[in-house]
């Protein structure tokens, strides 16, 4: 198994209008890095319907040596059964040594099914991937125990070595139009009997403003906000900064904020550039959702609050007094 497997493959994701999703660029970035370290090829699996040639060229410009295109009308809408089947078929044919997916709705869903089917070993939600120069194995670093600890894992003998990567934790590489690569069309047909699950409807819930997972700046309120009205000023700060609003589980449970904006182990896991934590103490399960943030700012009345231990900047004070002047100053600075 080990001897036969070669190369790094990433499973790309497309956005609704047909372009490559941001996670695909991140996968290409880390994939390129791993492939270069191994001196092997980086390939991309593109699954969809009526995939134009521009996507393959884009993938090559962003780091791919080879693009496998699986084009089938059945792939026009994401269906776990169909995507798992096609990805498994391509993996059996190409036999990559490493297979990477995004920790996204799709990657999270098909990665374990794919691993089970093709005999791979899998680490989910990795925040770092590298090659161990002694063994040539992929080192998979992932947060465990709600982000309290990190584990470095390996897949010693099973192939491919599979991982999903947490969005926004691995940088894309620079685009290079002169990069060369091959485009290979792969067979993507299947017996209809493999499709057991039927998609009835996709319901888009209205999100006002910036999406949490995509936001560069997130302003989050905790139990200390005290009421749904209190969240108004949180929203105002997020708007001024062009960011999104988050809430802790306690704030959601007490009805101050809607459940879909909950950040934490049982809510959304985010990695923005700036995370402003307001009136929240920093419970383990909450930090699990935001510890990947580049910069954390804490505003809390309690100087002993744990959040100050993880924050870079802090103000000890009541949010009701801190936020109005902070909003005003930010508005002024950003207008310049």
């Amino acid at each position: 198994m080990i001897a036969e497997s070669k190369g790094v493959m990433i499973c790309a994701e497309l956005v609704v209008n047909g372009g490559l999703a941001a996670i695909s660029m991140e996968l290409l970035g880390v994939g390129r890095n791993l492939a270069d370290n191994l001196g092997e090829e980086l390939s991309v699996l593109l699954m969809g319907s009526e995939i134009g040639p521009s996507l393959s060229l884009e993938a090559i410009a962003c780091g791919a040596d080879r693009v496998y295109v699986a084009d089938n009308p059945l792939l026009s809408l994401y269906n776990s059964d169909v995507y798992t089947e096609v990805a498994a078929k391509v993996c059996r044919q190409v036999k990559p040594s490493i297979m990477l997916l995004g920790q996204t709705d799709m990657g999270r869903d098909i990665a374990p099914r794919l691993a089970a089917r093709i005999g791979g070993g899998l680490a989910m939600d990795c925040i770092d991937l590298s090659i161990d120069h002694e063994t040539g194995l992929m080192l998979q670093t992932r947060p465990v125990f709600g982000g309290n600890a990190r584990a470095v894992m390996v897949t010693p003998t099973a192939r491919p070595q599979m991982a999903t990567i947490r969005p926004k934790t691995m940088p894309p590489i620079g685009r290079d139009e002169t990069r060369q690569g091959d485009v290979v069309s792969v067979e993507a047909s299947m017996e209809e009997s493999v499709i057991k699950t039927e998609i009835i409807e996709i319901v888009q819930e209205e999100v006002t403003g910036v999406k949490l997972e995509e936001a560069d700046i997130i302003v989050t309120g905790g139990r200390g906000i005290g009421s749904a009205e209190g969240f108004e000023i949180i929203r105002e700060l997020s708007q001024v900064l062009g960011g999104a609003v988050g809430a802790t589980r306690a704030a959601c449970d007490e009805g101050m904020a809607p459940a879909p904006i909950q950040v934490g182990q049982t809510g959304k896991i985010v990695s923005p550039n700036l995370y402003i934590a307001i009136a929240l103490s920093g419970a383990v399960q909450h930090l699990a959702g935001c510890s990947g943030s580049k910069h954390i700012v804490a505003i809390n009345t309690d100087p002993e609050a744990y959040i100050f231990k993880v924050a870079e900047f802090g103000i000890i004070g009541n949010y009701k007094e801190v936020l109005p002047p902070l909003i005003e100053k930010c508005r002024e600075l950003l207008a310049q």
Partner: protein
Amino acid sequence: MNIIVCIKQVPDPEIPPARFQIDPEGKKVLPPEGVAPVISVFDERAVEVALRLKDKHQAKVTVITIGPPAAKKAVRYALSMGADTGIHVQQDMVEEPDSFESAHILARAIEKAGEYSLILCGRQAADWDAGQVGSIIAENLGIPVLTVARKVDLIDGKWRVESVIQDGYRIMQTPMPALVTVSSEIGLPRLPTGIGIIKATKAKIIEWSLNDIGADLSGIRRSEILKLYIPVREAKCHIVEADTVPEAAQKLALRLREVKII
């Protein structure tokens, strides 16, 4: 109708971070003293889904766990919520099973438990956060799997599942039997009742060994942990101070601008 719920006992994730300790040599997490382990949050919600279906459609709910003898507590908790039968698969390996080993053991136990229409799992366990076991069980058993459910219903003999996605949810339908992994969006789990607690205390939990269920783990394991560590938080918090709160707030905005964070 039989519904099976796979549950896991984990260290309480609500402990303050300062009390979280590991044994880096043994690559293990040390259980905090005086804090009882709990049923993993998503698994507790999976039990809740099973009980809601039982309330509506009549079903027998069986919970299965793998682990040391103490893990039976999680089974008793699920019984006190209203589950009918508890199964404990004794697992005394030196190392914790990886996702493939856990899924292998659970799939064998599920097969031994008999016919089923639905298997429920939490979307991931609140300890290792692997998020793989449910899907692997389904692949091993050759049944459909729907992940990260916020609602599970039975309509015209098929499972109707709402699955959480980034901007909303997808409504899907799949035939019986199927496996569904449950997310926290399902809503709060019920608390045990007094009668439930009495019943659970008296209940006989079925005990199986790996041999009893025909689980042979040779060659199943696919992952190894090389290193376990607590990340060093480099952040040294710079507390912005001034004579008045508004001045401090303005100073903070300026500082963030200076270092180009905003």
